[in-house]
C-alpha cells in the first residue's frame, strides 16, 4: 500500500510538472516536441513498477542511461565514460564486499552460537557479529582464524535466553518456585476472607475462618518475606552466574575465534 501511494504521488507530481512546463514554453513551434518528451516521461513513471519487477536496479539503470546521454551531449569523450565504468565497477565491488561481509558475519554468528550452547549448555537467543574490513588493525586477530588481510571481528553480542533451566540453574529454579507459591496462597486468603469458597477446608467450618486466616496470613507474610529475601539472593546469584557465564563465553570466544574480551558483550534475555 505504501508503494502504491508512492507511485501515485510520483505520477501526480510528474503530470503537474508537465502541465506547468507546457505553460512555461515560449512558443508553439516547440510544443509538439516538448509534449512528446514529457508524455514519454509520464509513461516511464507509469511503467516504473513494471521496470522494478524486471530489473532490481531499475533506478540505477535509468540514471546511467541519462548520464551517458548527457555526458555525450556535453562533449564528454571516452575518458569520461571509462571513468564512469570504473566508478560503476568500484560500486559493484563494494556492494559485493558488503554482502560477503554480512554473510560471513551470519555464518560466524551461527557457529559461535552452536559452540556456546555446546560448552555452557544454555540456550542462546542470538549472536550478532559485526565485521569490519580493517587491514591494519586486523593483524592481531588475523593470526588466529581469518586470512591475512581479511575482515576482522569488531564486536560480538551474545544474548542468552531467559535462564530458567539447565544444570547450573537448579538452585535458582528452586528459589523461584518458592517465590511463586506464597503469592498463590495470599490470593487464596483474600478470596477466602470474602467468600470462603476457594479454600475448601476453610469453607466447610465457617467459625475458625478468621483464626485460620490470621495464621495463614502470618504464614504467608513470613513466606513472602522469605521469598523476597530469597528473591534477592536469587538475583545476586543470577548476577554472579551471569558474570560467570560472561567470563565463560568470553573465554570460549577468545580461545576459538581469537576475539579479545572487550569486543564481546553478553546479555541475558530477561530484559524482554
Amino acid at each position: 500500500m505504501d508503494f502504491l501511494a508512492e507511485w501515485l504521488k510520483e505520477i501526480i507530481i510528474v503530470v503537474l510538472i508537465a502541465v506547468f512546463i507546457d505553460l512555461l514554453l515560449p512558443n508553439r513551434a516547440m510544443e509538439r516536441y516538448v509534449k512528446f518528451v514529457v508524455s514519454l516521461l509520464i509513461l516511464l513513471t507509469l511503467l516504473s513498477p513494471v521496470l522494478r519487477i524486471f530489473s532490481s536496479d531499475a533506478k540505477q539503470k535509468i540514471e546511467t542511461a541519462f548520464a551517458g546521454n548527457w555526458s555525450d551531449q556535453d562533449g564528454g569523450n571516452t575518458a569520461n565514460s571509462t571513468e564512469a565504468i570504473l566508478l560503476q565497477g568500484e560500486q559493484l565491488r563494494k556492494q559485493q564486499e558488503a554482502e560477503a561481509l554480512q554473510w560471513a558475519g551470519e555464518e560466524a554468528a551461527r557457529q559461535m552460537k552452536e559452540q556456546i550452547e555446546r560448552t555452557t549448555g544454555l540456550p542462546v537467543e542470538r549472536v550478532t557479529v559485526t565485521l569490519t574490513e580493517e587491514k591494519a588493525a586486523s593483524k592481531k586477530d588475523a593470526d588466529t582464524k581469518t586470512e591475512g588481510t581479511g575482515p576482522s571481528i569488531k564486536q560480538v553480542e551474545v544474548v542468552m535466553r531467559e535462564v530458567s533451566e539447565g544444570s547450573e540453574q537448579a538452585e535458582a529454579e528452586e528459589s523461584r518456585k518458592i517465590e511463586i507459591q506464597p503469592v498463590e496462597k495470599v490470593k487464596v486468603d483474600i478470596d477466602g476472607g470474602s467468600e470462603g469458597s476457594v479454600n475448601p477446608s476453610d469453607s466447610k467450618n465457617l467459625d475458625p475462618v478468621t483464626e485460620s486466616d490470621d495464621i495463614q496470613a502470618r504464614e504467608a507474610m513470613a513466606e513472602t518475606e522469605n521469598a523476597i529475601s530469597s528473591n534477592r539472593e536469587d538475583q545476586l546469584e543470577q548476577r554472579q552466574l551471569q558474570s560467570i557465564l560472561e567470563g565463560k563465553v568470553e573465554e570460549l570466544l577468545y580461545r576459538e575465534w581469537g576475539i579479545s574480551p572487550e569486543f564481546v558483550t553478553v546479555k541475558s534475555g530477561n530484559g524482554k
Partner: protein
Amino acid sequence: MEMIQIVGLGLVATVLILVIKEQKPLFAFLIAACTGIYIFMYLIGKIGGIIEVLEHLAESSGVQMIYLKTILKIIGIAYIAEFGAQIVRDAGQESIASKIELAGKVLIMVLAIPIISIIIETVIKLLPA
C-alpha cells in the same frame, strides 16, 4: 510595476529602432537584440524562482530528480532556441532562424532517447520471447 517597466523599455526601444532604421539598420538590429537580451535576463530570475519551486515539489514528493532535470533541460533548450531564432529572424534571416529552431527540436528529441530505450526495453521484456 515590473510589467510597466518592461513594456516601457520595449516601447522606447521600438521608437529608437524606428528612428534609427532609416539611417543605420545595423544599429537598429543591435538595439533590438540588446533589448531582447535585457528582457530575457530580467525574466531568468523569475523563471529561476519557478524552477526552484518545482524542484522543491519534486524533492518532497520523491520524484526521481532525473525526470525533473530532463524536463528542465527541455525548457532551457526551448527558451534559448526560441530566443536566438527570434533575434535572427528580426535581422531578416529567416532560414537561419529556422535552422536554430531545428537544432532545438533535435536536441529535445535527443533528450528523449534514453527514455524511449528504457520503455522499449521494458515492453520487449513484457512480451513473451
